[in-house]
């Protein structure tokens, strides 16, 4: 099943000024509340551009070279049929049939969409936000930037809220289990294309699902911009496994606000893979709102050349007996940089919570740099919170040991890097997901298997 585009063609000027915004709005056919929220957000965006970004979050992230005016939003009908079938995008998953549904976006517009009839019959919605916001306006209005990501947070959240193009929506009704994983593919193709996709996942009480989302570029040369948002909203006893593999080319900018909220006894397993982009900055919050809510946050990043991968993570415990467990594993090479600033926040209500955060980084060259800064802010008096960070180089003795068994120096290093990430992969029970992450890393290491 392929859903036709809802948007009409019109030329949108480059950049994100007033003229671009009005031209962009004229291409949208959306409920009034959406248009109004865009106008409000655009106003905020213009104001927030004048104010300083939170130094705590952005001190180490150099955005001066980003130049938004170079990038351009696309209207749907500009897509050629060749690109619309998605065949020239670099997904690792090509030909894998284990998914119960797919959504594919190109340059911010829906390219294709399918969902198994069985799931559709159970009331599961899986599609493009630009379509779903019209067909299920009330459902989206209730959850869209109301609970998880706040458009007023900073210039990026407001920018996204004004210009969001579409994105993948997953809605799973009460007590419905989606057993097979779902796949969302977000691609950039045209030179200087912008993707403002918004991922919105709503799991009602007792629902469960697994979604694998990949962002990829069709070429290695084209400049790209992603200003995105991810919202994960879990009801009581809902279970979600969400993976976002950021695998843009090294010419893309990736800025995103991402947040998950979990109600009583819900479980969120959230894995981010940071492979691509010139510069990526992700603000990632998990908020545990209900008693017994649980979140496991995994990060796997691999930075090379002059890439910058920056993460600002928060684990908020707003209710008693909540548990959060964050594990980031970061590998760096060449002149790359990784920045991780992690915070565990426990409100006074969050008694008997257990918060954990850990960041391990492995540096493959003397010219890369890691800043890992864990932090705790605890208002409750009966909690267990621990954190730690390690950074080190590849152990020469490990390399020698592997080489003495016949492996070349590179093969040894690759094996050690894969092993370093393995402890995160061990936490992901869905094989196709684990294998996708692993393949992305192997590919980046520079050899096929």
């Amino acid at each position: 099943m392929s859903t036709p585009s809802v948007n009409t063609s019109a030329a949108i000027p480059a950049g994100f000024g007033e003229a671009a915004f009005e031209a962009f709005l004229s291409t949208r056919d959306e409920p009034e509340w959406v248009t109004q929220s865009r106008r409000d957000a655009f106003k905020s965006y213009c104001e927030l551009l004048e104010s300083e970004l939170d130094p705590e979050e952005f001190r180490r992230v150099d955005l001066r070279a980003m130049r938004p005016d170079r990038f351009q939003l696309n209207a749907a009908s500009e897509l050629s049929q060749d690109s619309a079938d998605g065949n020239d995008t670099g997904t690792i998953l090509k030909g894998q049939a284990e998914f119960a549904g797919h959504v594919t976006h190109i340059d911010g517009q829906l390219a294709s969409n399918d969902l198994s009839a069985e799931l559709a019959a159970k009331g599961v919605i899986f599609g493009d936000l630009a379509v779903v916001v019209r067909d299920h306006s009330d459902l989206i209005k209730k959850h869209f930037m109301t609970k998880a990501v706040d458009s007023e947070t900073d210039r990026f959240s407001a920018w996204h809220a004004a210009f969001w193009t579409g994105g993948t929506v997953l809605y799973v009704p009460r007590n419905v289990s989606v057993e097979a994983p779902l796949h969302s593919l977000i691609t950039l193709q045209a030179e200087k294309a912008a993707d403002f996709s918004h991922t919105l996942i709503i799991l009602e009480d007792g629902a469960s699902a697994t979604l694998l989302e990949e962002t990829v570029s069709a070429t290695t040369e084209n400049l790209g911009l992603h200003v995105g948002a991810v919202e994960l909203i879990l009801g009581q006893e809902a279970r979600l496994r969400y993976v976002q593999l950021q695998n843009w080319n090294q010419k893309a900018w990736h800025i995103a606000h991402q947040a998950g909220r979990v109600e009583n006894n819900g479980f969120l397993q959230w894995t981010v893979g940071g492979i691509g982009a010139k510069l990526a900055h992700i603000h990632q919050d998990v908020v545990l709102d209900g008693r017994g809510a649980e979140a496991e946050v995994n990060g796997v990043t691999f930075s090379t050349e002059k890439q910058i991968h920056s993460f600002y993570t928060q684990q908020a415990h707003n209710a008693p007996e909540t548990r959060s467990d964050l594990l980031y594993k970061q590998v760096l090479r060449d002149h790359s940089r990784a920045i991780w600033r992690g915070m565990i926040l426990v409100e006074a209500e969050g008694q008997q919570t257990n918060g954990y955060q850990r960041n391990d980084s492995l540096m493959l060259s003397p010219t890369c740099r890691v800043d890992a800064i864990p932090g705790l802010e605890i208002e409750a008096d009966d909690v267990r919170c621990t954190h730690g960070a390690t950074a080190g180089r590849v152990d020469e003795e490990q390399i020698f040991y592997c080489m003495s068994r016949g492996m070349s120096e590179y093969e040894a290093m690759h094996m050690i890097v894969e092993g370093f990430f393995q402890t995160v992969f061990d936490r992901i029970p869905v094989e196709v997901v684990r294998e996708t992450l692993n393949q992305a890393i192997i590919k980046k290491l520079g050899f096929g298997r």
Partner: protein
Amino acid sequence: MSLLKISDLHVSVSDTPILKGVDLEIKQGEIHALMGPNGSGKSTLAYAMAGHPGYTITGGKIEIDGTNIIELDPNERARLGLFLAFQYPVVIPGVKVADFLRHAMSNVRNPDRKEGEKLIPMREFRKELLGQMNELGMDPEMARRYLNDGFSGGEKKRMEILQLAMLKPKFAVLDETDSGLDSDAVKVVSEGLSRLSGPEMGVLIITHHERLLEFNQPQFTHVMLAGRIVETGDANLAAELHEHGYSNIRERHPEAAAEEVVEAV
């Protein structure tokens, strides 16, 4: 028949000369014991043979069938049929024993293999791995564990012997494979080694203890003192050293004894 020949080997560690002219010849099928007091240079010889970057060869040769290997990387030496069983095997977190061994075996059996090229077929590999593990009394579950991660001392040494069994080198150097093991574990390792050694393998056993040699009777025993091999004898020499220690050796070689590095007490 292959020949490993070491001539006038000089090795320094951090600019300090440790080996000062070592000569040694091992033919395929022979078992040699290398003994000597602490600090005499036994492990240095083992590491230098394997190509550890911290051990600088400042003179002399190590040849396998006439090819001087001192300029070769450790992996190239391994592919020529040299194996070192480590005194302190290295932990590689996240890398499963089976994956590690399959890569190692593919490289050693196909010395021209490049990274990313095909590995030994899984079925063939598994059959051989499980067979060898069974012979060494190892739980097949161990193949799924991460290499040496959380292994006991005995498990690590057994893992070295398993690798030896899988890689079937022409020349194996065992660096104090019996150290730190209780007598049961030494027995397992000794029996394993004796089962593996034969006409196809030359073995150099570096040891302080008698037990490993009981099961693996050496044809030659070498004694190292202050970076040189000062005496070579047969199995009786090993027995004598076990009984009397190194005082007789020092008396017979006063010049070498005078060069010994006195260990801080």
